[in-house]
């Protein structure tokens, strides 16, 4: 299992692996936001947590179809399915690899971009905590979506349509925790609910993804 994780991480950082693509997209979206919204500082500060969360969510979405599509195309998914690794473990490892290459860089970059959006300093820990707790759920749900659409040519758009509604609870509680933190209110409740969603998806999604993969491999 460790071998699969190392292989996926190695593939991600090699040429054409797509590492940094989500991060670069996140940076550009957030940098463009103030241009679109205008110079009114109060406005940007107020909506900064929401913008950062939506940016992170879209950046995450960008690389989802790579989770299984590449292994499907070159036949390694079939070989993995006939290997001693259970497909549930394969799906879990793939989700983890996706989070390390996509979610984790977003968490690290968010504070820098928060300065750009003039987020109040007391909101920073809450923003980082909410992203760190919430992005694993994005990867886990996305892995399920990727497993559902794996055999389809150009399944990326369908994948987005399937996955975005499932992202709503994570976005809701994640952005709420970051907003409350920035406004100096108690943000523990949405943060706890966010953690609950993440643990639930991390526990359930590998099984759903494996079931979808089995159907698609037939």
């Amino acid at each position, binding site marked *: 299992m460790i*071998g699969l994780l190392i*292989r996926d991480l190695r593939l991600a950082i*090699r040429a054409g692996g797509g590492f940094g693509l989500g991060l670069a997209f996140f940076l550009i979206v957030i940098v463009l936001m103030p241009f679109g919204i205008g110079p009114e500082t109060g406005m940007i500060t107020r909506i900064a947590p929401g913008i950062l969360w939506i940016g992170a969510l879209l950046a995450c979405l960008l690389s989802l179809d790579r989770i299984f599509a590449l292994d499907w195309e*070159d036949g390694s998914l079939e*070989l993995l399915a006939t*290997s001693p690794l259970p497909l549930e473990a394969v799906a879990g490892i793939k989700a983890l690899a996706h989070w390390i290459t996509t979610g984790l860089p977003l968490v690290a970059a968010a504070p820098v971009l928060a300065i750009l959006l003039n987020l109040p300093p007391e909101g920073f820990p809450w923003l980082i905590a909410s992203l760190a707790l919430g992005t694993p759920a994005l990867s886990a749900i996305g892995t399920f979506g990727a497993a559902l659409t794996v055999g389809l040519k150009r399944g990326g758009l369908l994948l987005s349509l399937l996955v975005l509604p499932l992202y709503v609870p994570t976005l809701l509680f994640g952005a709420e925790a970051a907003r409350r933190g920035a406004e100096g209110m108690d943000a523990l409740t949405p943060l706890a609910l966010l953690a609950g969603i993440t643990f639930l998806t991390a526990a359930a999604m590998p099984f759903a993804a494996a079931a979808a993969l089995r159907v698609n*491999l*037939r």
Partner: protein
Amino acid sequence: MSLSVHSLSCARGGIQVLTGVGFAVAPGEALILRGPNGAGKTTLLRTLAGLTPPLEGRIDAPDDGIAYAGHADGLKAQLSVAENLRFWAGVFGATGIEAAVEAFDLGELLDRRAGNLSAGQKRRLSLARLLVTGRPVWCLDEPTVSLDVDNVARFARAVETHLSNGGSAIIATHIDLGLPTARSLDITPFTRRNQPVTVDEADPFLSEGAL
């Protein structure tokens, strides 16, 4: 650790392809599957490998005993030959890749990226993976595609070594592999469309389409 199949029916893409397939392969035996394109060789091998559940019938095989190799090589173009092999060795819990490298003469290519190999070299790497799986039953789907004559012979030697070590192999191929001990099985008689289909047992989608 023998593999036996009893009155097996297999489907691909929801359409029944084979019915009533039965055979047994003992350790040390090789079975060559013959049949024209579309006869159902790939479908049978995918069913044996567990990728497609059988419609009916029974497959008696050792647990985790089947190594499958399909049309696709299953290689990562960005990884080197050694990295590709070591990954599969790790997945299957094998200790080393030396025997596999030697059997398919990959020593000089170890540090090359798999994406830069020729089609035949890729195929050799993909076949070398079978040796690191350490599994007794090989299910191979046209393993000699894009191999030259020398490498077909090299592949036949690898299969013979595998058989003499108590393994077995089921190989779908159109060429003569030069395996003197191998039995042949023509699967054409089991192909579904070669048998009379009565309306009530036909697939509902098919009969609707026919009407």
